[in-house]
């Protein structure tokens, strides 16, 4: 068959080409021949080993996306940067609404089963129990790394870290001194602008930044309005002070934005439904302080407090929310055989819903969500430096389900940093959110006679529970070939689902007379398993060319619990995450300071979202003519003019466009 010639050509060509172009790096070293010790210490280098030491000793499936990975991927937002992590699936819903981010399945438009942290500050919202990506922006040039842990993190991070944790860590202000200006534009990301200045003063290093973006709508089929544009602006600062035993950090941000949106809403009189294209306004800010002290006996304590405020008003409803959080962690001095860590935390989140239309409301309108938590963890070094067992548990009290506990046990085997293997069993919970408990939405269905469906929250929900069995290993197969793989078997119970359509007695006004009312209530109704595996090699093919492929597989076997008959949510959970995902990322350093980066990805179909499997690619050419200037041109989603990634309500599905943008970064 014709196609088989290409791989043959590729693999046949590869060794010859590699032999011809593999030049000894001795030439770079010779430049250093006559330098003094001081001069050697002032040279900025590119590091060869991609995996930081901490990855070897982590008994979980961890992936670290470095600042360089993000820069060279050409991603313009954090969810786009997460696309090339094995086991993570990212689907863009439209130009202004959320991204559906899932780790090991259970993806939905709320990114519910993933805990997202920015510098240790949780951006989980108890409103819909997930994360709203469009308001949680970090200036990409400020990101030092993104650590993604696949698998439950309930023991340390608490509830809602069910399927994974995404930890976005920004650079220390010591590393961002000087000025930086970045500007870019294209057809999809129409305009992005980042500004930053950092300096130091009396022992404190600090930086201030401002950035904003304007994004165009994505592709709509004929006669549909281009409603999903977005505009956002954000300012922020960070100040750090480091002394021999203490580290202080103070950070804050303020943002405001406007997003085009489409919401299907209903009216009582006349009984009808319509689509509102009123935009959504958002504004908010946060402030965070952190103190870490290390003692002479190598124990350390960590204290963090943050406050965040988020305001949103859209055509369906609005919300104002404040969150106050204090966390304390103490790691005791370890002995040769064990190390204890313990901590306590408190989070209070008062919020008020503003009703915009009579059909959409929350009961009660105001509520304070609270979490009190404590955790204890012990690391037993069974064979020092070779085999260790970490056991621990978190105990929490929340205002929805009372006490929840999340224990875990992890075993880690390491052999001289060339090989490490780990296995774990953990329990994690996801507590119900305001949507599950307090929502009341009346949806118009038919006329005549007027038929309405009321979607109701349920105050008697219990927490969703996961017991996860995982294992994995990582190894340096050869000096330039690193391999990591992980597999998992997850048992879920009490997953919250839309209950069956139940007739209700004739409702009073504001319903029109003669209304037939049906109710749908959220119930704990689904259980079952998911299992799968991910494999991610990392190959430094030559000194200037690195290749990173990845493959992940997911099998979903969820079912209604006995006595529960509705299948709406079940179909969604089964068919909204891809069974297979594959990608290859390649980075080539060309002469004259050019970079050529490409990534290819295949995402399997999502039957419940009516989205077909697709393959697409991004490519980027970067040029660094002088140290302070970087220019780049990036093409995204190149294989098709547009493709669908996720469904949306109100329909029709919005297609994600092929995009191209150019960017200039000047730093001093």
């Amino acid at each position: 068959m014709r196609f088989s010639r290409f791989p043959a050509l590729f693999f046949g060509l590869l060794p010859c080409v590699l032999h011809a172009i593999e030049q000894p790096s001795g030439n770079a070293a010779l430049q250093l021949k006559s330098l003094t010790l001081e001069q050697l210490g002032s040279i900025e280098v590119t590091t060869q080993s991609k995996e930081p030491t901490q990855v070897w000793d982590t008994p979980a499936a961890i992936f670290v996306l470095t600042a360089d990975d993000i820069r060279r991927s050409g991603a313009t937002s954090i969810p786009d940067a997460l696309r090339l992590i094995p086991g993570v699936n990212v689907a863009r819903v439209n130009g202004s609404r959320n991204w559906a981010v899932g780790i090991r399945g259970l993806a939905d438009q709320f990114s519910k089963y993933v805990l997202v942290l920015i510098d240790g500050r949780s951006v989980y919202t108890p409103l819909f129990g997930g994360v709203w990506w469009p308001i949680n922006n970090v200036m990409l040039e400020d990101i030092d790394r993104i650590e993604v842990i696949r698998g439950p993190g309930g023991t340390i991070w608490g509830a809602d870290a069910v399927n994974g944790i995404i930890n976005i860590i920004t650079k220390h202000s010591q590393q961002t001194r000087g000025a930086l200006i970045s500007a870019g534009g294209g057809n999809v990301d129409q305009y992005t602008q980042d500004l930053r200045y950092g300096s130091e003063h009396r022992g404190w290093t600090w930086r201030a930044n401002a950035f904003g973006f304007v994004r165009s709508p994505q592709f709509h089929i004929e006669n549909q309005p281009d409603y999903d544009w977005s505009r956002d602006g954000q300012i922020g600062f960070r100040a750090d002070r480091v002394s021999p035993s203490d580290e202080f950090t103070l950070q804050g941000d303020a943002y405001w934005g406007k997003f085009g949106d489409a919401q299907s809403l209903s009216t009582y009189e006349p009984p009808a439904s319509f689509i509102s294209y009123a935009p959504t306004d958002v504004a908010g800010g946060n402030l965070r302080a952190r103190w870490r002290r290390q003692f002479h006996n190598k124990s350390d304590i960590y204290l963090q407090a943050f406050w965040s405020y988020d305001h949103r008003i859209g055509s369906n409803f609005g919300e104002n929310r404040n969150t106050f959080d204090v966390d304390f962690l103490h790691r005791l001095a370890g002995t040769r055989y064990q190390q204890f860590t313990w901590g306590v935390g408190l989070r209070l989140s008062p919020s008020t819903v503003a009703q915009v239309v009579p059909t959409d409301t929350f009961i009660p309108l105001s509520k304070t969500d609270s979490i009190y938590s404590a955790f204890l963890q012990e690391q037993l070094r069974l064979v020092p430096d070779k085999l260790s067992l970490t056991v621990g548990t978190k105990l929490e009290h929340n205002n929805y389900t009372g006490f929840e506990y999340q224990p875990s046990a992890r075993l880690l085997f390491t052999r001289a940093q060339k090989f490490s293997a780990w296995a774990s069993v953990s329990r994690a919970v996801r507590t119900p959110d305001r949507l599950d408990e307090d929502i009341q939405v009346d949806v118009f269905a038919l006329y005549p006679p007027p038929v309405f469906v009321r979607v109701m929250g349920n105050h008697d929900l219990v927490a969703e529970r996961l017991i996860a069995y995982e294992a994995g290993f990582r190894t340096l197969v050869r000096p330039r070939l690193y391999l990591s793989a992980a597999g998992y078997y997850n048992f879920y119970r009490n997953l919250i689902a839309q209950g069956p359509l139940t007739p209700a007695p004739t409702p009073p006004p504001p319903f029109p007379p003669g209304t037939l009312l049906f109710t749908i209530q959220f119930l704990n109704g689904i259980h079952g398993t998911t299992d799968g595996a991910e494999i991610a090699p990392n190959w430094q093919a030559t000194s200037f060319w690195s290749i990173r492929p990845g493959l992940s597989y997911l099998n979903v076997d969820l079912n209604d619990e006995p006595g529960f008959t509705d299948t709406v949510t079940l179909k969604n959970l089964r068919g909204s995450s891809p069974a297979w995902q594959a990608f290859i990322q390649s980075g080539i350093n060309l002469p004259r300071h050019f970079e050529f980066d490409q990534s290819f990805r295949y995402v399997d179909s999502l039957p419940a979202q009516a989205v077909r499997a697709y393959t697409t690619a991004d490519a980027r050419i970067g040029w660094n003519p002088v140290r302070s200037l970087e220019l780049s041109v990036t093409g995204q989603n190149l294989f098709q003019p547009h493709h669908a990634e996720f469904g949306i309500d109100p329909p029709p599905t919005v297609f994600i466009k092929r995009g191209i943008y150019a960017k200039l970064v000047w730093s001093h």
Partner: protein
Amino acid sequence: MQRSFTIGRFRRRRDHIVRSASRLAATFTAALILGSVATPRVVAQAAKPTEYDVKAAYLINFGKFVHDSEEQESRPSFDICILGRDAFGQSLNALASNETIDHLPVRVLHPDVTEAKSCGIVFISSLEGENIREDLVLLGNADVLTVSDASDFLERGGMIQFLLVQNHVRFAVNLDAVNRAHLVLSSELLRVAFYVTGKPPIGGKP
């Protein structure tokens, strides 16, 4: 029963994957050719030095700033020995060629640890992990300068440890280990070190 797909659907899916893979391979081949056509210039244009290029340059320099406090029999060459995985590639060889330390030619060797006592400098790869302890014990108090980039090398008795400080390669010194081996490090080297632990030699300049 949950996943039932017909043979036809499976075949269509396989063909789709195959078509995508061929497009993938085609673009890769294009990228390779692009890379290889641009290559002839690589020899003249040096890329940013890597971490190991700078470490190799440091090793050569260390040789010039260390000397034995005790009389030593003459040896034919100054040997820089590498224990464990050699991550230097060609950089150390390139710098060592035509170089002299103490008027001796410099050689780069990869001996067994038991033969390493006759080296001038021993660089121990961080991947040696646990074996580093053993390696240092076997080297004993031989007058060999031990260097590594393992993260707790100084605590284990090593003499010079490489550190990566915000993408700059720096080094730290453990004077106790240096003194035990009857070596003396020039004050110029100590001044540039990121930090120095241990006591200075009695009678020596601080």
